[in-house]
C-alpha cells in the first residue's frame, strides 16, 4: 500500500476511478504498463501532475497494439494532440474505452472516430476503402473494394446521404452484438 500512495494522491486515484472504468488496482497496473514503455521518461511520482507525453512510436509498440491494423488511428483518436502522443491520462482513457466495462454507446462513439479517417465526422467511401485496405492487406481488386463499400453503405446508411453518420453507425452497432466483445483490448 505504501508505495502506491506515492504515485498518486488519494484524490487523483478517486478522480481516475470516477472517470474511467477501472478499479484502483487496474489503474496502478496500467500506470506500470505506461511507465514500462519508457522508464526514464515517466517519473514514479505523479502527485505533482508532471507533463509527460510518450511518443506514438512507444505507444504503438505495446504488445496489445503492435499488430492491430488500426493502432495508429486508435492512438490518434485518443491522444490529445491528435498525433498519437499520449499522456498518462490519454493512455488510461484509451484502455478505459476499450475495456470490458465500457458501455456500448461510448465504444461505438470511439469506434466511429477510429474508422473516420479523414475526421469529417462521417464515414464516407474513402474511409471505408481505407478500412478495407487495412483489414485485407490491399488484396482486393478495385472493383471489389468499390462493391464492398457500396454494399456497406447500402446496408448501414439509413438516411440515404451516401455516407455513415454517427447515428447510422450506432444503429448498426446495436444490431451487431459481437461488437462489444470485439472492440475490446484486454490489458
Amino acid at each position, binding site marked *: 500500500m505504501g508505495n502506491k500512495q506515492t504515485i498518486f494522491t488519494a484524490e487523483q486515484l478517486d*478522480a481516475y476511478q470516477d*472517470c474511467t472504468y477501472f478499479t484502483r488496482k487496474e489503474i496502478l497496473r496500467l500506470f506500470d504498463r505506461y511507465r514500462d514503455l519508457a522508464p526514464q521518461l515517466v517519473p514514479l511520482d505523479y502527485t505533482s501532475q508532471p507533463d509527460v507525453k510518450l511518443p506514438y512510436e512507444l505507444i504503438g509498440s505495446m504488445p496489445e497494439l503492435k499488430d492491430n491494423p488500426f493502432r495508429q488511428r486508435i492512438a490518434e483518436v485518443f491522444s490529445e494532440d491528435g498525433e498519437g502522443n499520449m499522456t498518462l491520462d490519454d493512455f488510461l482513457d484509451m484502455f478505459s474505452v476499450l475495456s470490458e466495462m465500457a458501455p456500448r454507446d461510448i465504444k461505438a*462513439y470511439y469506434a466511429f472516430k477510429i474508422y473516420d479517417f479523414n475526421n469529417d465526422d462521417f464515414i*464516407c467511401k474513402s474511409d471505408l476503402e481505407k478500412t478495407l485496405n487495412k483489414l485485407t492487406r490491399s488484396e482486393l481488386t478495385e472493383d471489389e473494394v468499390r462493391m464492398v463499400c457500396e454494399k456497406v453503405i447500402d*446496408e448501414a446508411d439509413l438516411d440515404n446521404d451516401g455516407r455513415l453518420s454517427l447515428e447510422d453507425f450506432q444503429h448498426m452497432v446495436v444490431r451487431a452484438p*459481437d461488437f462489444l466483445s470485439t472492440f475490446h483490448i484486454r490489458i
Partner: protein
Amino acid sequence: MTSYRNGGFFNAAYHDSETLEIDRSKTHHTNPYAGGERPDEHYSTGQTGGDAAVGRVPGWREESWRESIPMGLISTHSESPSWHHDLNHSTFQIPPDSQRDQSPHVRLSSKASGHMTMRWRGITMRRMSMFPNGDPANVAFTEDAIRNEMETEEQDLVKELVALSTRDRIRAIRDLPMSFDEKKHIRSHVLAFKSSKQSRQFTCFADCTETVSLSFRRCGSSMSSARQTLELWQGVMKEIGGKFGTSVLIYFVFLKWLLMFNIFSFLVNFGFITIPLLVYDPSPNIPPNVSFSGLEILSGAGYFHYTVMYYGGYSNETLHGLMEYNMQLAYFFTTAVYMVLCGIALIFSMASSFKKNYVLADPTSNSAWQLLCSWDFSITNERAVRQRKNNLRVQLKESLSEKAQRELLTLTEELKHFGVYLGSWLLSTGLAIGCGASIYYLCQYQQQLLPADAADWSLLQEAETLLVPFVVSLVNLVVPLFYSLFNKFERYSSQRRQIYALVVRNVFLKISILAVLCYYWMNVVAKKFSCWESVVGEALYRLVIVDFLFLMLGSFFGEFLSNVIGTRLLPRLGVPEFDVARNVLELIYAQTLAWIGIYFSPLLPAIQILKFFLLFYVKKVSLVQNCQPPRRSGRAAQMQTIFIALLFFPFFVGALSMFAYTAWSLTPSEQCGPFRGLNNAFSVVGVWIDDLEEIPGSQWAVWIYENVIRSEIFYFFISLIIIVIIFIFWQVTQGRKQLIGLLRQRIVNEGKDKSFLLDKLQNLQKSQPDKKSKQKNQKKHSKRRPDDHSSSGQSNSNAMVQALLARQQLEQEDERCSSDGVPVPSDISTSSALMQAMLARQRADDQDEDKHSSSSSAFTQAVQARQRAEGRERDEHYSTGFSESPINTSSAFTQAMQARQRAEEDGADDAHDLPSSVSSVMMQVVQARERAEKEDRPPWAPAPPQNSAPAGSSALIQAMLARQQAQNEYDDGY
C-alpha cells in the same frame, strides 16, 4: 436534443464573436472581385443573427444614425485596427463573464476541441467540420465561439449531474464521450458545485455524509479490485483471445462459467449435507471386508459405495449436536433449492444474453458488420492477424459472389440438395436412435450379470461396469465425427445454418443417450437393486470419469493427430481448427451428467470441478499447440446465447424433471439413504409439517403447506395468471415490432425526402439563372486586387470558410471606406463580396465533388443556411425593442422558399447559365429572404437603435449596433 443543437444559432454572442474574430485575424483581406455591383443584399447581416435587427432599419434613417453612433467608434477614426481591437474586447470579455457568474472558476480546456459531449456534439462536430485543417485563424475563432457556447452547455450539464445521486453521477461522468481531462474537469466542477451547495446547509451533517459515502465508495472499489484478483485465468484468457479471437474464447469463458457453477453447487452440498454428517459421525460405516483397491477411482463402486460420496452414505436421523439437524429435510431441501437456484441463474443469464445478442441482431447487414464490427481488437498475435485478414478477404469475396451463385441453381440441383439434406437428416437421426437403443440393450444385458446387492460385486464385475460408460463415451466421440462428415456433403448456403444443423444433430444424439440411460435407471435399476440410488450415483460417477478421459483422448487424437496429419502427411487438410460448437456441446453434456447426479451423488460437483479445471489446461495446451484460429468468424455472441439456451432447455430441464420424478414418484430404497422407509422423498415435507403442527406459533407454515403447496387450485391460478401475463407481453412485443418497423420506414422516408428536396433545388437552380451570373460578368472588369484573390483561393476546400472570408472582406471593405473616406460606392463592395462568397462556395463544392458526392455537402450547407434563417428569425422575436417585425412566424424555411421565388422572378431576365450548385441556391435563399424582410418592414417600426441599446445593456449588443450602423451607412449611400 434539438434545443441544444440549435442553441448556437440563437446565441448572439457566438455569431458576433465569429464575425469579429474574422475582422481581427484577417484585416488585410480585400475583395478581388469588387466591382460595380448591386447593393441590394445584406449578405453579411444574413450571417450574423444579432445584426439582423439593425439591418432592418430603413435607409432614410441612416443620417440620424451616423450622428448618434455611440462612443464614436467608427465614423471619423482613421486607425481602423484599433477600432477592431476595441470591439473585440468589448464583445469577448463580457458575455462569458456574465455567463459565468455561478461558477467563475470554470475554464474549459480549449486544446481538446475535438472532444465534445454527446449533447453538443451535434453542433460542435458539424461546426468543427466546417473548418478542417483550416489556417490557425479560423481554428482560433471557431474555438472561441465554441468555447463560449460550450460553457453554457457545460453548466447545464453540470447542473444536471449535480442533481443525480452519487452512483448515477459517476456513471454519467464515465459515459461522457470526452477526453479524460474534460471528464476530470467536469467532475471537479460538479464536486465543487455540490460542496458549495452543501456548505450552505448544515455543514457538519453534510460533511459526515460526504465522508461516509466517500469511504463507502472506496471500500466498494477495493472490494471490486479484490474480486478481480480472484478472477481465474485472466492471463490465459488474454493469451487465447489474443491468438485465436473471441469466437474461440467463448468456449473457455463457458468452461469457466460452468466451473463457477460447480464450485457453487459443491459448496452448497458440502456445507449443508456433508459437513453436518461428518461432524456428527466422522467415520463411514464400511463393512470390514471392503477395502480400497484403487479401481474405485475409475468405477466409483466398492469402497466408495459406503462413503458420503453417494446417497446411500447419508443417514435418516436427526442429528443432535449443538442443535437438532434433520438430515432428511436438509438433503431434500438442499438438492431442491440448488436445482431451483440453478434454474433461476440459467434463466437470467439466458434472458439477458438473448436480449443483448439475439433480439436486436440483424442478419441483413452482413457486409457492414463484416467490415466495421467484426474486427477483433483483442487479437495481438501477428500470425493470427494475418490469418484473420486473409479470412476476411475470402469472406468478403464470397459474399460478393454469393448472389450470382444462388441464381444459377436449377430445379434439378435444388432437388438434389434437398435429397442430400433429407438423407443426411434421416441418417443422423437414425444413428442417434440406434445408438440409444444399443446402449439400452447393453445396459439390460449388463444388469442381468450383476448381483442385486452392490456389496456382492466382485472386482471383475466392478470392472465390467465400466463397459457402459466406455461405450457411451465412444459413441459421443465417434458419432459427431460422422455428423461432421455429413456436413461436408451437404452444401449449406450459409455457414450459420451449417453450424446449426450440426448442433441440432449432436444435441439430439446426446439427448437420446441420456434419455435412454435415465429410463433405464428409473425403471430397471430402481426396481432391482437394494440400494439403487447409490448404484445410479456410481453409474453417473463412471460416466463423468470416463467422459473426462475421452475428452482428453479426444483432444489428443482429434486435434493432435489431425495436426500431425495435416502438417506432415496430408498438407491438403491443413492444421485443424478448433471446433467451438462440438467442444461446447461436450461441456454441456458433462454438466448435465453432474446435474442428474446431484441427487444420487451429492459430491459429484467436486469431481466435476476437478474435471473442468484440468480440462481447461488440456484444452488450452491442445489449442495452442495443434489448432489454428477458425477460418470463419461466426457471430460469436449469438453462438454463446444459443449454447446457454441449449444448456437450459433440453439439458437442465431434463435433469430437473428427472430429479422431480425421482423425488415425487419413486420409492426410495429401504436399507440405505436419508429417505429410507418413506413412500417417496417428497413425503419428508409432509412429515415435517406434521411435526410443526405441534409447535405453537408455526401455524402459518402449516397453513401455507395445506393451502398453497398442496392445493391444485393455487397452481391452477398461478398458471392462469402466468399465461395471461405471457399473452400480454407477447402482444406488447408485437406492437413494438410494428412500431420499430414504422420508425425504420420513417427514417428511410426522411432520407428520401432529403434527396427529393435536393433534386428539386437543383432543378430549380438549373432552370432559373442566377443573379450571380450577371455579377460574374461584372466581375471581369473589376479585378482590382488580384493579390488577395490568391489568398482566398488557396484556402481549403471547405465552403463555409470561404464564405466567411468573403463576408469578412465585405466588412473590411466597408471599414476601409469609412476610415479612408474614399467614396467607393458601398453597393459595389457589398455585392461583390457577396458574390465572392457564393463563388467561393461554389468552388469549394466543385472541389468537393471530386472526392465525394457534392449533394450531401451541399445539403449540409442548405441546412446550415436554413438554420441561420431560423436563428435570425428567433432574433427578430427577441429584438422587438429595435423593430416590430410584421413578418409572420411560419417556419423560416417556408419564408426562405418564398423569398427565393421572388428572387428568381427578379433575376429571371438574366439569361446566363451557370453550372448549377446547390450552395449558391441556398445563398440566394438567404439573400432573397433578407430583401423580402426589408421590403416587408414598415417604415415607422424601428426606434432609434441607440435608445433601445441599454435594454440589451451589454457591450456586445452595442458593438453589434455600431458595426451594423457602419454597414448601413453604406447601404444608405446607395
